[in-house]
């Protein structure tokens, strides 16, 4: 270790700034730990729809996730939920909902819980069962019998209202599509570009004035999830008033505006609790002492920094984030700390199958952990989120729930251990 390499010291270092990592970090900071989050870049929040899907399919559609979880856990003893514990999931959701309400977006809140999944349309018009969702999306529940007017905007190539409405109709809802005129000066605007425009009250008023005449009195209005980044609740309320109709958002292709709101909320909570977030810092290795990790080495802005801590939380994601990868010799690796994996097919066994929609044999791969989410071979490292083995997040509709509940859970484990060791420390 070069004497010139900067050495920083924390109680806990969290690697990864997706839902799992930020949740763990906020909770640790709130619990009094000095916390630093190191992340290569922003994570899952900017890709995911911004809903907290706990258990959507098992494999049939789940109506009541809270009631279904014990049975699901019994059937899947290696699933992250089995390690987290069914009882720990509800409090994690509750914790998150409170952080949203205390957050920087005025009035913005999440609704729902484990009692009943909300059945919200995706951008192709199928139902996605979500436990906890932004209030701005909740009006899309298919059990609301009101007809739906899906509003497309030509410059947003990432949302196709007619396809969405056709599938909603096909599945029994009454839905139709209209195209709203929007004033933008170029052919393409992505969700973020539109969200910035919806933040502008004057632009929004002009949009509503053009849309109002084409919406029927008995319809709900579905818009792509672009209703602002600064004050989405205000924008949503404003549109409902101007249109005189219920309005709801439908998440679509990344970048995810509701996910970015979630990121801002957790980031603000981390700051408020005294935690630090370093983006652009890729963890590329660790200093080990036997079964412990003493420090991680992060590469940022052309130099390396050592971050020392008593505890580390690995929440770097799975294959999609590059946290776990397959090399060209077909071996799999966890890239930040070199931790052992579980669930990856043995050499010579199929990694994938030819049916795209079937379960892929490598799909449940993750970092090997013990029953308390501790990494095998590294006693002061906990693992959270998509880095955990044993789940099929998209097929199960469980990724956000796993991220949130495991992030919440590992923070508690660290806080408990710190409390125990403080008790043991002579005054």
């Amino acid at each position, binding site marked *: 270790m070069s004497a010139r390499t900067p050495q920083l010291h924390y109680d806990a270092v969290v690697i990864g700034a997706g839902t799992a990592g930020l949740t763990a970090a906020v909770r640790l900071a709130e619990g009094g730990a000095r916390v630093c989050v190191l992340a290569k870049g922003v994570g899952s929040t900017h890709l995911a729809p911004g809903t907290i899907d706990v258990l959507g399919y098992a494999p049939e559609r789940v109506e009541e996730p809270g009631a279904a979880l014990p049975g699901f856990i019994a059937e899947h003893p290696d699933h992250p939920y089995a390690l987290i514990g069914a009882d720990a999931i509800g409090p994690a959701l509750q914790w998150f909902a409170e952080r949203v309400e205390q957050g920087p977006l005025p009035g913005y809140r999440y609704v729902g819980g484990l009692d009943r999944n909300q059945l919200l349309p995706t951008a192709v018009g199928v139902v996605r069962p979500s436990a906890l969702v932004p209030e701005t999306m909740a009006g899309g529940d298919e059990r609301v019998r009101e007809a739906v007017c899906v509003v497309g905007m030509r410059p947003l190539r990432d949302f196709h209202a007619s396809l969405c409405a056709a599938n909603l109709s096909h599945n029994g809802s009454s839905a139709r599509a209209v195209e709203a005129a929007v004033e933008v000066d170029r052919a393409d605007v992505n969700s973020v570009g539109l969200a910035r425009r919806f933040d502008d009250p004057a632009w929004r008023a002009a949009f509503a004035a053009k849309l109002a005449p084409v919406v029927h009195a008995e319809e709900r209005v579905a818009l792509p999830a672009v209703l602002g980044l600064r004050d989405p609740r205000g924008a949503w309320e404003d549109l409902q008033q101007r249109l005189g109709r219920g309005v709801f958002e439908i998440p679509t292709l990344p970048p995810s505006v509701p996910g970015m709101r979630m990121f801002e909320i957790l980031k603000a909570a981390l700051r408020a609790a005294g935690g630090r977030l370093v983006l652009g810092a890729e963890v590329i290795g660790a200093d080990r002492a036997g079964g412990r990790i003493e420090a991680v080495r992060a590469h940022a802005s052309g130099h390396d920094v050592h971050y020392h801590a008593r505890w580390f939380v690995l929440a770097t994601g799975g294959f999609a984030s590059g946290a776990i990868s397959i090399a060209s010799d077909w071996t799999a690796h966890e890239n930040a700390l070199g931790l052992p994996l579980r669930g990856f097919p043995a050499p010579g066994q199929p990694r994938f199958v030819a049916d*795209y929609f079937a379960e892929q044999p490598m799909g449940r791969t993750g970092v090997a952990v013990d029953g308390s989410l501790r990494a095998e071979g590294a006693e002061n490292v906990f693992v959270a989120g998509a880095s955990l083995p044993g789940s099929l997040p*998209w097929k199960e509709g469980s990724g956000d729930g796993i991220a949130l509940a495991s992030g919440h859970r590992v923070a508690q484990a660290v806080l408990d251990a710190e409390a125990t060791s403080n008790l043991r420390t002579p005054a």
Partner: protein
Amino acid sequence: MATLSTDVLVIGGGATGAGVAWDSALRGFDVILVDRLDLAEGTSGRFHGLLHSGGRYAVKDPKAAVECIEENRILRSVAADCIEDTGGFFVTTPWDDPAYADRFAEGCKATGVDCEEIDVAQALREEPRLNPDVSRVFRVPDANIDIWKTVWSMARGAQSRGARILPYHAAVAIHRDGDDVTGAHVRDDRTGQELDIEARVTVNAAGAWAGQIADMAGIEGVRVLPGRGIMIAMNHRLVNTVVNRCQMPTDGDIIVPIRTVSVIGTTDEHTDDPDDHTVIESEVDAMLDDGEKLVPGFRHQRALRVWTGVRPLFEDAKADNTETRDVTRAHALLDHAQRDGVKRFVTITGGKVTTFRLMAEETVDAVCKQLGEPRPCTTRTEPLPGSEERRHYRIGDRLEAKEERLTDDQLICECELIRRSTLEETMRRRASTNLDDIRRQVRLGMGPCQGGFCIYRATGILHGLDGLSAEEANGALLGFLQERWKGVWPVLYGDQLRQARLDDWIFQGVLGVEHLR
């Protein structure tokens, strides 16, 4: 059941069949072209994209080399818009017999293949990623050819002269009247509708499947050995010049830069089934190792997609082995009146994409002979539609076109720079609900993200444009995803695996497309 009649019925819509249709139409014949799949979906659409200079055959098969360089020159003129003039190198790597280089230079001279030895330093300036340990470099006029563009240009050119082009129409029976072949019975595999086609002459241009068509006509002994080869498309242009190993042709010795990717090829294994597209992991490994010899670091690039194609190798009566590379690559034209006493039926098979025009010319000459109506061929000079200006495609053309319309035309596929207007025009023209058909027209979803972002967009546009039902639109989306996966999963590693999982996140996590089924 409908009955159509025509002068020339062409069975097989690869480069050769489309070439026969184009040539026949130019000679004033009425033409119907049928293919069991989309045009150029078989062997023609499953090669590496190389327009040979002839260098590859200069030592081993001088006749093929002569054909290649002559056709190379003709196609550069008549199909200019389908060709990118990359040029090619033959390089002696440390793994190659150094003595071959002189034989290569002599072979090129003898066969008329333009060949110039250049300094290794110069070659490395032009291609900085080339293995710096190469000892000799020869420059030849290799190029790449977009075969889908070529085939469809010919099909549309023929159509504008009255030809009927019928993709997805499989020949289910060949009609015989005594010693005469009188046409075929075909079925539209999309609708189940059947058609009888009466033809004055029927051309069997089914390539690797030509034996099956000949069997239907009751003709024995037309044996086509399918020689299976794999190719892998790597992200980006690792080289901008075609790079060949300077050695006797073998596996994995060519890298062809084409459009936004670089394709390495290929292998050659005998297979009994021309529809066998199995990819074997050891072949992928071998191909990646071979790439490393030409471009160090090759293994660490993103492998986008792997596919296999089958060469139609007509069995030479003298050849008695299963090493298919040793069977002649020359094409075989069978006039069944002479060979079997069956009139009005001609088979063309074997050969290679580079010589498809010549094959078509010889075939239509045989058709004229059968009909007793000699008409001269004009495909040596007549440009394909789109190539009238005789200007080669350049890699920056799409970007230039997009920049001209930055604010009024959407970009639907960022990887391949496909504009909304182009996509809509293509969808209208093809009138197909199969996004894979659209892919072959405009390279939709063929770049690094393999359709992760553009396929939802394209499905939405298709649905809006054609007023498709939800089921049809969903079928287009799901069908594309499944078709794409076939070529993706056997090479999933490194950053491309990450990309694939991001795509899964979009399709399964955000959109929930599996619940459309």
